[in-house]
Structures are given as C-alpha cells and as structure tokens.
C-alpha cells in the first residue's frame, strides 16, 4: 500500500485512455504525456498500458508500506526517497517505511509515478483513467487527497531499468508546436494564417493561468477572423490536440476530456508534439508553425521509432 502524504497541486490515476465510446461523449481522459506514461510502466516491469499516477506540481509525497520497485518519469524533477536523491527515468527500490518526495519541478509540468504490481484503482469502461468531471475511474473518480491509501497488489522488486538519455524529451520553453490545418482555418484572415506559417511574432503565445486537463488557454495576439464569418460552428466532433478559437481570437488547445466542440477549429497540434502539451504551464511561451500532413506523418513515425529505441532490443 502507498499513502498520499501530499498530493501536490493535482494528482490522479491515469492509463492510456478510454476509447470506443466517443459517440456518447465519453472522452479518452488519457495520460497527457504518453511517452513518459508508458516508460513509467516499462521501468517498473508492468504492462505498458497499466495505471500510474499523473502528478502536477511540486511538493508531492507518498509513504510506502511495502517493498516495491518504483519510477518517476515526465517533467524534470528533484526527488528524494527519504534523504536519498532518486533519479528520474530510472527504476529504484522503495522499502516499507520509506517516503518518496518530489521537492522541485525544474522543467516541464506533469510527471508520472509507476509501481511494480497492480495499483488498485477503479477500472470503468475499459480504463483506469480518472474522469474528473463525471467522477468515475481511477481512485474513486477524483484527484488524490492527503491521507488516501492505494493498495498495491502483487507489489514486487525487479532489476533496475533505465531509459537512455538520448531519447528523453527536451523540455524547455519556448515550445515549438507544429500544427496542421483545421476545418475552419479558412475563416481567418490571410495575414493571420501567414503569420502562423512563417513562425513570426504573430505565432508566439503565452500559456495563461487557465490550464487543466480539458484544455490550455493561450494569450497573445488575437487571431483575426475574416469580416462577416461566423466565429462559432454548429457543434461538431473534435479530436485531442484540436486548436479552437472563440470570438476573442485567443486559441484554446483542447486535450483529452472533450469529444465535441463549438468554436472555429483553426488547427490541430501534430501528433508528434502531443506529449509536449502535458508540459505547458502558465507563462510558458509557445510558437506555432504550420506543417503539412505528410511532414506530420513523418514526424510521428520518427516519434514512434524513438519510443521503441527507449526499450532494450
């Protein structure tokens, strides 16, 4: 069992997501940084799609009452097991009575903690991921609180594993987000679109304080709609990474909690950059740059190769 001593700003149980029911509005609620999430599972010898903790913010700590292999991935953190420093991206053994403490987050925003064995969490509609708004899945359908105790079934100790440094994500703003044309890009002025293609000053945005698992609101130069066009659409399906633009011209990057949107869909963040979205925190700078879909496919393939390069042959 583990006991939450301090949940940080926000921590929940996640997995690779809930799929197949978007037709009735059930969102994926997936781990936001898929690479880091999967590696947290790999490092502790679990199935790659098992449940792990997704934590935002420093100060997180938990106490073990079993001996278990554990790993931290994702944001660059300074973490301690009692008074011993532990390396992220490398599994380590925790003993009953130890406390894991994340003292600081240096770069990035969200990190993942995996444990060898099976975390006892609610599997609802084929997924352990927490749907916070609907209060189901994960740990009682809600974020973790101080004093929560999570059972670890078949907790065990495995040999040390690590992820080679050259495949680790580089997390330092400004983040360049490559984007693809969305269905309503034509509703924006040519200057607005040209600004995004050239990666000029127009394409710089700042992450606002409104950041959560549903979406990321950006601040900066408002994107300009052509005269006389509708700024809303008849509500329609969206996929994760869709960039919607409400009437005020400030983009919102939609994440994994919505299946339908009602604002103009300017663009989509390329798949290869989806994991980065987990790490956009208030005040970070982002730069948009438009790419074509073939380029996006190529980048995605490279990302997948990268993923497998992280694992031993």
């Amino acid at each position: 069992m583990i006991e939450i001593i301090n949940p940080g700003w926000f921590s929940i149980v996640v997995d690779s997501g809930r799929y197949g029911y978007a037709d009735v509005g059930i969102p994926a609620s997936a781990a936001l940084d898929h690479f880091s999430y999967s590696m947290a599972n790999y490092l502790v010898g679990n199935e790659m799609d098992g449940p792990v903790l997704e934590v935002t913010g420093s100060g997180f700590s938990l106490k073990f009452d079993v001996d278990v292999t554990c790993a931290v991935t994702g944001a660059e953190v300074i973490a301690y097991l009692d008074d011993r420093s532990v390396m992220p991206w490398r599994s380590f053994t925790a003993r009953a009575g130890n406390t894991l403490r994340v003292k600081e987050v240096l770069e990035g925003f969200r990190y993942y903690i995996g444990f060898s064995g099976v975390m006892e969490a609610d599997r609802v509609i084929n997924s352990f991921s927490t749907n916070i708004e609907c209060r189901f899945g994960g740990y009682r359908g809600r974020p973790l609180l101080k004093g929560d105790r999570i059972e670890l079934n078949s907790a065990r100790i495995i040999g040390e594993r690590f992820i080679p440094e050259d495949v680790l994500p580089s997390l330092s703003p400004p983040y360049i987000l490559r984007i693809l044309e969305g269905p309503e890009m034509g509703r924006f002025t040519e200057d607005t679109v040209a600004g995004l293609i050239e990666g000029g000053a127009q394409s710089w945005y700042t992450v606002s304080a409104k950041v959560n698992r549903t979406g990321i609101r950006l601040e900066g130069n408002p994107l300009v709609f052509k005269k006389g066009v509708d700024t809303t659409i008849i509500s329609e399906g969206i996929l994760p990474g869709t960039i919607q633009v409400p009437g005020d011209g400030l983009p919102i990057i939609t994440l994994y909690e919505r299946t339908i949107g009602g604002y103009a869909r300017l663009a989509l963040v390329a798949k290869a950059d989806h994991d980065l979205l987990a790490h956009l925190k208030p005040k970070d700078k982002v730069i948009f740059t438009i790419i074509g879909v073939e380029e996006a496919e190529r980048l995605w393939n490279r990302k997948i190769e990268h993923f497998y390069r992280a694992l031993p042959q």
Partner: protein
Amino acid sequence: MEFSRYGEDGVRIVFGDTIDLEVNKLIRKYYFFLKALGLKEVIDIIPSFTSCLIRFDRRRISFSDFLLLLKDKAKDIDTVRVPEPRSHEIPVRYGGEYGPDMKFVCSYAGLTEAEVVEIHASTIYTVFAVGFLPGFPYMGILDKRIYAPRLETPRLKVPEGSVGLAQLQTGIYPFESPAGWRIIGKTDVCLFDNKKKPHSLFRIGDTVRFVAT
C-alpha cells in the same frame, strides 16, 4: 458525403451544413452502419449535427487505404438494418429554484412562464449529437418563440439533471458541471450510468418529449 482528413488519424465526413432533420437521418444511418461493420481500424466515431468524425488506428492502416476502405464499404449502406430511434419522456420541474434562467427566457421572449413551459414541452425534439459531457444530448429544433442566447459568462456549476436551452437547441446536463446554456428546469432522470450498458440513455436520432411536473 464529403470526405476530408482531420489531422493524422481522423476522417471527417460531412453530410450537410445546417441543423436539419434529414441530415440527421443520413448521419444516423451512416453511424449505425459503420458501427455494425465493427471495423478493427476504427477507434471512435463521433456523429454530430452535420458530420461524422472517425478516428482510425493509424498503426493498422494508412489514411489513403482507410479512405478507400470507407468508400468501398459505403456501397453496402442499405444492407444494414438501422435500429429504430427510441422515444423518451422526460419529466421536468420548470422554473423557480430549478430554473434560474426561466425569468430571463420569459422576458427575452415576451411570454409568461406558463407559455414558455407549454412551448418547450409541446415540441418533440430529436437528439442531434451526444457529447460535450458523456450522455449530454444536443436536441433540436427549439421553437423560435423561446429562442435565447447563451450566457455571456458560463455558470461555474449547475446541478445534474439541469435542463437548458441555447439558440435553437435544448439539452440536459447529465452531471454537475459548468454550463453556458440558459437553465429553465431540472429532471431526476439518470442520463448516464458508467456501470450499466448502454451507458447513455440517449443516442443520435432518439426523440424526446418533456413533461412538466
């Protein structure tokens, strides 16, 4: 049917460009057809007012091959029997503490509360899409006489079961959630159950009648 690409792993099929019952029928038919095919390449289907958005498994198939597959299969659309729409009666307590925006809707429409209720409850609505929140039905078409704009600033919280309207649509919030629609009443009917199948009470094409209690 107009096919286009939506990012790396999405296909968007547009059936029309207005809120229209005939378009809804076409989308509904296509949605049930595609669901019945049970293609392993399909991860999710999101039918809505004017389109079906399909997320496909790019590890299994390329976009161009998937598009060919969809177009080829579409020839068989009439071979699948589409289930009849279900019809639902939803009891609603209108106004008062249950409908904080009822007064606004009345004054915007220049009607009494009894008239607004009578108009809202006498229309048979069609479910055009289910989403935003799991189980939330986007329903239309609202009688023009009770048209009301969305809230300028959405409420941070409305209770589960709140019945709202916005422009020519009406809907029910399955969970306590933020809401930008005008809330005129509340129902106790459970719209979404993660433990029971089907999880959502409503599906695209279902019809709904509200009954004032």
